[in-house]
């Protein structure tokens, strides 16, 4: 146990760095939930599986699981693109036919797709935990980038934080300064009105899925490297936590998802460190339930999407 003040504060700082790393990954996933919810009011339960797919694809491509081993950067790029495509396909196959059905039908379909994809991964890759072979990953990632006394920040953590920040900035630019972003915001406000103004709703929804799923894929790759563990059920818990982050930030709000991700990451690390490690996952559930019950709009969300109390 750390006893001196110095030891305690360096433990605290280390936890903070670890929490921020985890949080930026949750934020990347949470953005995917929130964007899709923003445009079609659907909780895409299968989003966690896209993240898992990102991890598995990058692992398979660099380690030669499919027969050929590709260079790291190329493998990662392909994995992200395939994830984006998978998100678009998911929407085309499962959700689009149900656009005019009751919301419950789409929600149940999303759960069905999540289970389907998770078990598909189990069939393809098996249930054991896979690790990236060290030889194919750029070596510098595991070296310490910064060191203050006991506190170590690895290059991988720096890369994760930077990637998350850059992607979030790019995403904000897309949403606020491009035609596509304007169309997305229009659909989020009023889908019918947007369609009447000539917005091609289906295409914009596809792009939204592509963007969200691509980011989810990036998160999967980063986590696969960070924990060096890739397995079929990894998307389940991460998906729930990221969803909790999205709810906390206010579902539908991108800055909310980023903030929520950060808070969730810190809460998890500090909760495990200072409160109870066995209830680590429970913190995410508890936050999620409390936010929904007490302040369903979250930190940044628009006032309740709940049809009864919309006013």
């Amino acid at each position: 146990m750390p006893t001196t003040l110095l030891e305690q504060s360096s433990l605290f700082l280390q936890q903070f760095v670890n929490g921020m790393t985890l949080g930026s990954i949750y934020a990347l996933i949470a953005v995917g939930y929130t964007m899709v919810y923003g445009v079609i009011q659907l909780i895409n339960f299968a989003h966690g599986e896209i993240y898992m797919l990102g991890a598995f694809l990058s692992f398979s491509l660099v380690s030669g699981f499919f027969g050929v081993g590709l260079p790291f950067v190329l493998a990662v790029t392909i994995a992200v693109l395939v994830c984006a495509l998978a998100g678009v396909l998911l929407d085309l196959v499962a959700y689009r036919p149900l656009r005019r059905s009751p919301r419950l039908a789409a929600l149940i379909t999303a759960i069905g797709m999540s289970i389907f994809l998770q078990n598909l991964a189990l069939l393809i890759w098996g249930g054991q935990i896979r690790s990236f072979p060290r030889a194919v990953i750029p070596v510098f990632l595991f070296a310490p980038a910064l060191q203050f006394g006991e506190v170590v920040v690895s290059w991988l953590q720096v890369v994760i934080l930077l990637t998350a920040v850059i992607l979030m900035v790019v995403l904000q630019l897309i949403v606020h300064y491009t035609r596509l972003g304007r169309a997305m915001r229009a659909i989020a406000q009023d889908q019918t009105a947007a369609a009447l103004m000539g917005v091609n709703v289906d295409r914009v929804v596809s792009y939204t899925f592509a963007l969200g799923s691509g980011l989810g894929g990036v998160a999967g790759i980063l986590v696969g490297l960070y924990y060096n563990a890739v397995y079929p059920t990894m998307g389940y818990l991460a998906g729930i936590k990221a969803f909790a982050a999205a709810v906390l930030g206010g579902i539908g709000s991108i800055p909310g998802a980023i903030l929520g991700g950060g808070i969730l990451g810190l809460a998890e690390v500090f909760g495990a460190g200072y409160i109870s490690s066995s209830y680590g996952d429970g913190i995410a559930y508890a936050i999620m339930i409390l936010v929904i019950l007490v302040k369903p709009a979250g930190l940044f969300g628009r006032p309740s999407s709940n049809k009864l109390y919309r006013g």
Partner: protein
Amino acid sequence: MHLDDRLFHDKKLYLPLLIVVLILPWLPLGQAGPYVIRIATLTLLYMVLAQGLNVVPGFTGLLDLGYVGFFGIGAYTAALLTIHYHWSLWLILPLAALNGALWGVLRGAPSLRLTDDYFAIVTFGFSELIILVIKNELWLTRGPMGIPGIARPELFGVVLDQPWQTYYLILFLLLLVLWVVVRIRNSRLGRAWFAIREDEIAAECVGINVARYKIIAFALSAAIGALAGAFYARWFRFVHPDMFKFWESILILCLIVLGGMGSISGALLGALLLIPLTEVLRIILPSEFSSARYLLFGLLIVVMMRWRPAGLLPVERE
């Protein structure tokens, strides 16, 4: 009359069915006998669970993604009461159901104003928290060690240790649950639930006390789940937190999606088709792929929602 009800009123239909179910343990099945009875018992158990779940998403239109939590509460209630106090099954069953109902109300009361996805998320989170507590509070539940050696069920002092006896026990519980569910569905209460399902605002406007009727639905649904759990603990004689994973909630949901949400006979049919299939797949598939049978359930849910959202035995909408 509900289309769904014909199964229970049309004697031409239900008498032969009842006879088949009653004589099943006495059919000359030879070597496979005990195994067939085991699967039949499991199927009946899931029929009870499907009936219980059906009350919330089927009757009131609120998606419950955490039904397994009540199953777990019932199982652990029965396991602990049996281990520590050696009470009779017939005392434990109502107590477990009551405990389930209590938690159903505790979960339902704060989520009354939630609809659709937010309700589903709260139910999911709640059930995961319950299982997490069961896993971590070692002083109460022994956590991941599970509780072994739970006494078998008994009736008038006779221990029910033959497979056919437990089969009749769960059959009795199923008939009891069916009787309750059918009666309530056709009562004023059932009509109030349907009104809430079709349009909550309209229901409120015609004077239905939405909150009260929702709470009753949550309590009934949870009580049935816990009842099934209590039977399960005494039948299986072992409980473990991993028996109550999220998958189970989805499996039960899958049963009523297949049969048709809100359809009582549909929930029976769903279990009749899927539970034996699950067991057969468990044997046929090589062990490393056996959990991949859930792939079929995922696909089934998607396909049903796309092409037959009202299920195989849809309820007639008036």
